[in-house]
């Protein structure tokens, strides 16, 4: 019903171009027009130069022995000492592994959840339920990590620090209860569930917008061929979401060495019993340096995360260009 209506609407308002006129240039954009099209990017270029590239001069502090009074440029050089601090610590291997492992989990799970949710939402046709559910699944994105932490404690430990809703339920099924807050094993998965809850709806909005860009005719053709809804979702919608998914994936790969500090720290905090499986670069650095306030070491670790991320992105883009050129961001 509603599909018909939207189709009808869009038919009535085709983009109206000016009347046809002879032009010699066709196909690729020419030099003259490309110059004018470049104008559109100027404000953004200016922004990046001033607010991103100019401050990057501050990265030199990663190679300096930072002194509050001398500032960034006045502090003495100290070579790679700031980098040594983290890489030489006995925990570096475990923390790097945690960072990678957790981020791969988060990235994969949230993207999959976003795509699945978008496809399922797309199946529900123009009803109040569809609109309401879109709003509701979007909402967790706005819940501050502090509040997520409260909700988790209610579920896993109970308000008074013993029991909790999950343990009550497990006891109901005859399962043994768990002291969640001193048991590191399940935490990578608990955090993944939290991330999916937080971001699934948010990402589904992006994919939903991409789905709305798919011409209705494609589905009509599918229907004439007698494809089921499931087949159409699998063969039409999913492949058409590939470019968007690929972009998000590549962007995610670049940030894979950054932990999600806000959420992880709000939930885990200084609970050392859980670090074995949850400590990532950002939380480790925060903990080790909070009383030293050493901008040099912080900058060095940030630079390390960026450089490794950059290398990974370059590899990802090369692979993408080799196997799936049309989805490449370059």
């Amino acid at each position, binding site marked *: 019903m509603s599909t018909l209506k939207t189709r009808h609407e869009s038919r009535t308002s085709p983009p109206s171009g000016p009347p046809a006129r002879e032009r010699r240039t066709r196909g690729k954009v020419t030099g003259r027009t490309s110059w004018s099209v470049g104008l559109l990017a100027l404000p953004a270029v200016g922004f990046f130069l001033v607010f991103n590239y100019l401050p990057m001069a501050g990265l030199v502090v990663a190679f300096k022995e930072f002194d509050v*009074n001398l500032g960034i440029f006045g502090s003495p050089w100290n070579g790679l000492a700031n980098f040594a601090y983290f890489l030489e610590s006995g925990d570096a291997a475990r923390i790097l592994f945690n960072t990678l492992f957790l981020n791969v989990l988060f990235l994969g799970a949230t993207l999959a959840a976003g795509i699945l949710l978008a496809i399922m939402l797309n199946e529900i046709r123009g009803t109040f339920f569809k609109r309401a559910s879109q709003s509701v699944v979007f909402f967790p994105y706005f819940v501050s990590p502090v509040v997520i932490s409260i909700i988790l404690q209610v579920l*896993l430990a109970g308000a008074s*620090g013993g029991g909790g809703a999950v343990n009550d339920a497990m006891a109901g099924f005859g399962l043994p209860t768990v002291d969640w807050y001193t048991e590191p094993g399940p935490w990578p998965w608990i955090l993944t569930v939290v991330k999916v809850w937080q971001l699934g709806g948010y990402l589904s909005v992006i994919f939903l917008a991409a789905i709305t860009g798919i011409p209705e005719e494609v589905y009509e053709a599918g229907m004439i061929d007698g494809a089921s809804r499931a087949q159409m979702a699998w063969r039409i919608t999913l492949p058409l979401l590939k470019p968007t998914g690929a972009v998000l994936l590549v962007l995610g790969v670049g940030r894979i060495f950054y932990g999600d500090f806000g959420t992880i720290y709000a939930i885990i905090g200084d609970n*050392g019993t859980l670090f074995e499986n949850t400590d990532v670069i950002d939380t*480790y650095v925060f903990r080790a340096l*909070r*009383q030293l*306030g*050493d901008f040099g070491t912080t900058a060095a670790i940030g630079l390390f995360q960026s450089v490794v991320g950059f290398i990974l992105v370059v590899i990802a883009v090369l692979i993408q260009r080799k196997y799936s050129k049309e989805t490449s961001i370059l």
Partner: protein
Amino acid sequence: MSNPTMSRRGLLAAGGGLSVAALLAACSSQPKAAGNQAGGALALSLLLPGDVPAGWDAVLAEVNKKLQADLGFTIKPQFIPWTSYGQQALLKFTAGEKFDTALQARWLNMTQLAASGSIVELSSLLSSGKYPNLTATIDPKIIELNRWSGKLYGVPQINSVARFHHFSIRQDLADKYGMSDITDFAGLEKFWYDVKQKNKDITPIGLNSRLPKLLVAWNPVGWLNPYMWDNPTMSLASFTGESLNFVLAADGKQTGSSHPIPFWEAPGMMDALRLVRKYYQDGLFNKNALTLDSKALDSQFKAGRVATAWAMTDGLSSAALPELTKNVPGAMIANVMPLKGGANAKPYQTFQSDNFVVLNAKGQSNGKAMQLQDWASIKENHDLLNYGIPGKDWNPVGDDKYEKVSTYTFPGFALAWRAKLERRIKEMTESEAKWFDWAQDIDNFTVDPYASFVPDPEPVKRENAQVTAAMTQFANPLFIGAVDVDQGLDKLKKALDRAGLAKLQAEMAKQADAYLKGQ
């Protein structure tokens, strides 16, 4: 679909135009505003932690009116949320901003700022005789003990002379179990087990995520360390607040050797670790101790869900009483200090202030900043800042008590805490008053032989950072008994060895020996 395409294009064009205009306007107009300030009357800029107090505008207006009349300048405080305070304050120092005073402390970045010369050494200002009210309200002995290697880097902000943590317990429950007056650790232990047995819904000991490090090896005593309560004469020192505590030799003054040892080698420590492990397994603590924040725990205490809370000799534990009695009619609170020998125990005390007001070396006027400290040492001004407007925010009760009537809460410890001027809350219980009074008398304590020894973390910066990280990971679970003592300690030792414990220990010995020599 009804919007014509033209309007959208117009909107975008307008957006672009707006952005350019805004940029230009923003860039050109601001310097003028900055210039205005320098020309006009002086307003001291202060960094304060926490959120803006309710009713702040009215109090600030009153403060500035008086300040203008008394001293000819005003103040312009800036409130910075707790969680960002350390970083923000350091950032402002680094950027060379011209604010005048800030809260600093060893648990913030004070040692670093002192080392780099970012904050003013106060000795000559303080001895100039220009600030009589300030010097009259801070005990000279306290000033002396808060000098670091002879230098004073901030005005100590204290509301009691000595700070000694202890227990705030639900006396109504203790009465019910027939324990009318608990005075020692054994009594407390019996109380906790009684609570556990007889009140299933009440946690015997409430722990929040900031407490673990205070439980076993802490200065002056570990909160749940019976040996230290019996022998409160151990000297502990660490490079930074979250780092490893070393125990220093008691006879250092005689031998000249401080001989620092990691806490677990000191007497009583292993027993205390095993004790908290037993408490944890017997369910005396809340299971989410390592995660629960302090405010949430307070709230549970006020709701009657917790039988014992951490208390400090700051006269504030009784503040929970009105809310508690509302939720649990008939509830009572008592403060218990389980020292062997009670009030006559004469425990060690370093008298190190937890909080200082420091003067920015690049501030507009260090002299005026000191004048402000002096001004805040006059009772009427002190009361106005700390408690708000009389009649509206609070009512005096006698000369040294007050009754709160609004929700105005000022971070006095960042500007105007003067032990001699502090008023007590009206509700203060008898037992708390007793220990609060006790803590005001310097003669009830023995000055720790290492009292003003403040180790400088700079030479072992990296090792210290790694040790700090290892402590949070392996020591905190040990301190609340969440892991097996032997295995947990083994892991901790290994992690500390990797992190550079040996180097840290050697540096501690070097600095502490040097301190002993200078005594």
